């Protein structure tokens, strides 16, 4: 799960350059993702992990770093789906 999200972020927002993107780095503070980027990220998460992100869930606490996204997904996904889609965790 983490690797899929990391690959998406690097490919779409960092021009493929991994650099020093840490798992806890804030996307907002580092300027990696703006509000349009959040829309793209949400669509990716919904399509890849089969979830629906509600408007009230669109907060930095859920989406502002790789680890926050993983925690958010783990809380949303049934435990079997989490295991099946996140072999790298």
């Amino acid at each position, binding site marked *: 799960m983490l690797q899929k999200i990391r690959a998406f972020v690097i490919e779409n927002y960092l021009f493929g350059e991994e650099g020093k993107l840490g798992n806890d780095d804030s996307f*907002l503070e580092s*300027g990696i993702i*703006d*509000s*349009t980027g*959040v*829309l*793209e990220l949400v*669509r990716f998460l919904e399509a890849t992990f089969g979830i629906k992100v509600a*408007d*009230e869930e*669109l*907060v*930095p606490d859920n*989406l502002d770093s790789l680890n926050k996204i993983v925690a958010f997904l783990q809380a949303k996904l049934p435990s079997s789906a989490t295991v099946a889609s996140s072999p790298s965790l």
Partner: protein
Amino acid sequence: MTTHSTPSADILRLDPEAETERITAWIRETISRNLRRRGAVIGVSGGIDSSVVAFLCARALGNERIQILFTPEADSSPDSLRLGRMVATALKAKSALEDISAILKGARCYERRDDSVRLVVPEYSNGYKCKIVLPSLLDASRYSIFSVVVQSPDGQIKKVRLTPEAYLGIVAATNFKQRTRKMMEYYYADLLQYAVAGTPNRLEYDQGFFVKNGDGAADFKPIAHLYKSQVYQLAAYLGVPEEIQRRPPTTDTYPLEQSQEEFYFTLPLETMDLCLYGKDHGISAAGLVAATGMDEGFVERVYSMIESKRKVAKYLHAHSLLID
């Protein structure tokens, strides 16, 4: 560095007479010596900012040296033209009406926008109206993500969060409007050897509330240093018609009426003014609680939003970049 001074809302009070003198002297100097033009073209929307700029230019240059331009289109409120004409009449200035609807239709502005709306609201068709909106910052610390609000012919309202393609498609299409208006203003500028006035206030200029090469383009911007509430103070001093002073700020860009608050600033403009002032003057969030009536956490969120919008505005302000 932050301080814990406790300013009041009066921090934005200015001396309108002195400020008018300062701005009009600057306009005269800028137009005649710096730009070497013979007058000013002002696109007047019937809003407070463009009206104040028209009044300032008329004072600075004389009403015979300004050209007022009205550029309504199919989605414009009739009030915009009516109030704009009020400005031209008050100033006894020459004015021209250029309806840009046909140009926009030729560019498929409306068609492209409606196609993009249909990506998230498939039933959107003739007789429907739309606008895009942001969540209020007063709600929570949510991301500033746009939704489209559509109204069906029978008055039903529906709000849907935009996908990236729909959002970008709607914005790209509607930006034709501001760019077409600017093209028309430069037609008159070339015709008369005038300079084009830009009408952003400080909030708009600083926070990137403009279209690059659209309303963001101009030869001079005489109120870009003034907070919105200071523009209102000048309007009162200059004698801008009261109906314009009372009109709530609107984008006048979408078929459904849309406030600047719901489109961009996400909170009342008076509060935005105070927070921008506080941010620019190193006032801590705690120091702004009394002036805004908001709690410290809220002011912190506004400070964060200001910083975030400045990052986006950097591209909008950038000139073409060259290799050294």
